[in-house]
């Protein structure tokens, strides 16, 4: 099928034009396999996960360079994805929480790489509000909400594409899987199915002989947490009128959450395996680059938590792998890069680098290409910045993680948070080298005040390098800010703790 240089009009809809120039010589095809809610922790066999089997993701890992200090730029679906496709942080593009449209002038990666000579295709989950995926890519399958419904179709459409693509221009294909995001459904399902045993909801599976106790993982490490957390975190995860009724959760129900999470990981791993098989047996095997990542992780029961939007490692750290099944491309195989701090903000710059041009059109991000090739990069970032839920920002140097909670002072203006416009609330400081479970908040320890000050300074520097911020006027984001600010004020959460 030849790609048209002009937009195609059919059925009353305008579809995007495709490659707009001649691609540079020897650029690879690119497949971006992205999953939803896959943590870097406790999830991938090749990285040591004990309670799941991921042969397909392991195959990507063995064929590529894994960035083990990889963070989501904002560990919620829409904000993380908006960052991938625009090279901007959520406070800049406006997608500060789910379903909040981005500012209309937010950059788009797809036209940039079309300008570099690529035909661009998409299948599966998009979830960037304010941007119509069908006006940016040719869409093979528009994903639904859930993996059980969508993921097979993502694979099938991507396989059909690999079998039938017949153009001399390179392609970029994004395959957006939903799972293990289906883990979002099982907490309520399991709660409703469970029996009351001494006031606690207890799953029936072992009692009814469906599973053995040995089939179900133990409680996770770091199941507890230090209660000195930013107030937006408490409002979202601890204080919303006991939803999802954690006070009634038995240990067995927490363990069942882990069991289900691992099954959904395996479910999407099976799909990825089929896609890799197709690529392996296609003519595209040797000249195709694979990029694998996830928008954010999951609580997996750590820190007494489920779901997303925290900045603890199980949620904030995500896989990021650059791989190739063949031997033609310059990608180091079976390598774990534990040194370089990388982020979803780097995705666009990395893609542009492989495509040969366009990276300068994205405001932020560094290309991971030289790192994947094993080349020395002298000036790599020393600290990484991320955001969450409007009011939490994070910086880490790989040893210390600093999280700053912000508070509204007066009326909620809709302006994304930062030290210049908001009060600093509860802070967190973790020594992740010696406290990998992030159990001890050192921000209120006298002997850590010097480190805290340094991290605060880095945070201010990162914040001031953001593009000019604009108010969030869209109803969902603004409503989130007002509702949660009101809740925090009503409950009179502490804004700080004594330093001892």
């Amino acid at each position, binding site marked *: 099928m030849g790609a048209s240089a002009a937009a195609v009009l059919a059925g009353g809809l305008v579809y995007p034009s495709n490659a707009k120039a001649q691609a540079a010589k020897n650029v690879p095809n690119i497949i971006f396999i992205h999953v939803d809610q896959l943590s870097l922790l406790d999830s991938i066999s090749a990285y040591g996960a004990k309670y799941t089997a991921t042969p397909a993701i392991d195959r990507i890992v063995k064929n590529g360079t894994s960035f083990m200090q990889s963070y989501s730029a904002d560990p919620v679906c829409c904000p993380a994805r908006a960052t991938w496709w625009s090279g901007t942080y959520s406070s800049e593009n406006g997608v500060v929480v789910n379903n909040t449209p981005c500012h209309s002038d937010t950059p788009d990666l797809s036209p940039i790489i079309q300008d570099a000579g690529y035909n661009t295709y998409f299948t599966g989950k998009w979830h960037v509000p304010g941007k119509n995926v069908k006006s940016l890519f040719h869409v093979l399958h528009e994903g639904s909400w859930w993996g*059980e419904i969508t993921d097979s179709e993502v694979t099938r459409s991507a396989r059909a594409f690999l079998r039938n693509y017949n153009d001399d221009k390179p392609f970029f294909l994004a395959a957006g899987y939903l799972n293990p995001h289906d883990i979002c459904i099982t907490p309520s399902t399991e709660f409703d199915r469970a029996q009351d045993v001494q006031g606690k909801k207890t799953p029936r599976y072992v009692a009814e002989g469906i599973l053995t106790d040995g089939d179900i993982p133990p409680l996770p490490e770091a199941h507890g947490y230090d209660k000195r957390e930013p107030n937006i975190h408490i409002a979202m995860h601890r204080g919303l009128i006991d939803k999802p009724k954690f006070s009634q959760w038995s240990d067995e129900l927490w363990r069942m959450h882990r069991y289900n999470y691992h099954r959904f990981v395996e479910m999407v791993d099976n799909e990825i395996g089929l896609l890799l098989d197709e690529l392996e047996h296609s003519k595209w095997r040797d000249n195709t680059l694979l990029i694998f990542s996830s928008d954010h992780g999951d609580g997996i029961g750590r820190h007494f938590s489920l779901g997303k939007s925290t900045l603890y490692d199980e949620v904030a750290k995500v896989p990021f792998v650059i791989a190739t099944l063949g031997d033609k491309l310059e990608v180091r195989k079976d390598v774990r890069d534990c040194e370089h701090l990388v982020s979803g903000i780097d995705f666009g710059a990395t893609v542009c680098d492989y495509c040969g041009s366009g990276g300068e059109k994205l405001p932020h991000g560094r290309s991971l290409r030289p790192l994947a090739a094993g080349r020395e990069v002298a000036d790599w970032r020393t600290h990484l910045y991320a955001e969450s839920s409007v009011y939490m920002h994070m910086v880490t140097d790989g040893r210390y993680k600093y999280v700053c909670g912000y508070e509204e002072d007066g009326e909620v203006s809709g302006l994304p948070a930062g030290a210049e416009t908001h009060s600093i609330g509860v802070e967190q400081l973790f020594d992740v080298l010696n406290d990998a479970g992030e159990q001890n908040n050192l921000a209120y320890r006298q002997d850590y005040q010097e480190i805290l000050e340094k991290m605060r300074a880095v945070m201010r520097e990162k914040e001031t390098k953001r593009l000019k911020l604009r108010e969030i006027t869209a109803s969902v984001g603004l409503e989130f800010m007002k509702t949660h600010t009101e809740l925090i004020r009503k409950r009179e959460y502490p804004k700080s703790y004594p330093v001892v």
Partner: protein
Amino acid sequence: MSDTLHWSFGDNPILKEKVFAEGFSAPESTLPSSGFSPDGDWENSYDLVYTGPQLFTEDKYVYYGGLRIGKRVAGDVAALKIREINHMEQDFRSERQHIESECVCCNEALLPLAEGVDWNVSILTKNRRDPMTAAYSEINETGRLKGGVIEKMDGGGKWYNYKKIDRQLPVVGNWSLLASVGGIGGDKAIEFGYFHKLESYSAGHKVRFLETFKADFGGREVVLNGYVQTGPSITPYFYWFDEQGRLLIARFALSALIFNENPRIEKEAAGDK
């Protein structure tokens, strides 16, 4: 009168308040009225319904697919013929995937795939709207079991090894389970390799009898025999068969198959192109 439902299919409001209310429990109940012999030739059909956390009430979101499964016995083998239609797209507006498959199974417990006979799964997406994707609307999966290996045919027509299997354990497709689980004994757990849609294989699965349950659908008491499947890549799946051995309900993580002689999607999809 409220329905009496088992915890494995009574936990979801969409099932309780819409699907059963409009189907099994309705005045014009969709519970089967004809006789059934699981060992003979038959065809059953189902609505594929959404049972997730979003409490949809509109039909197009709830009834998002349909399945027809037919079995024909010829001596020691049984042929399964499958026709499945699923809504696609975020809003389930237009595009639909039509899946057709035929496979030959050993006519024994769980209807495992027969060795040395090719199977085919044809998957075609209809009502495509973006003309630039028309060439990528169809994929055919052909495979066979041969010498302890599942082989598949690649896009160029060459066979390749997809998975090595333990020859002691049967290779069972999801459609075979729907057709056969009701026939396993009350105290037996059967181990097998699970082959989802004849695309994706996972070793280490088990299926076993769970319990007999007296359900009540709008005042109609129905004795159901329940079975449960566990293994890698699935949360526990539940299968409920009537006393004649016909599957009435299968419940997965966020979907369910509910018996219906006239799956709702079929009429709507008749004109798909």
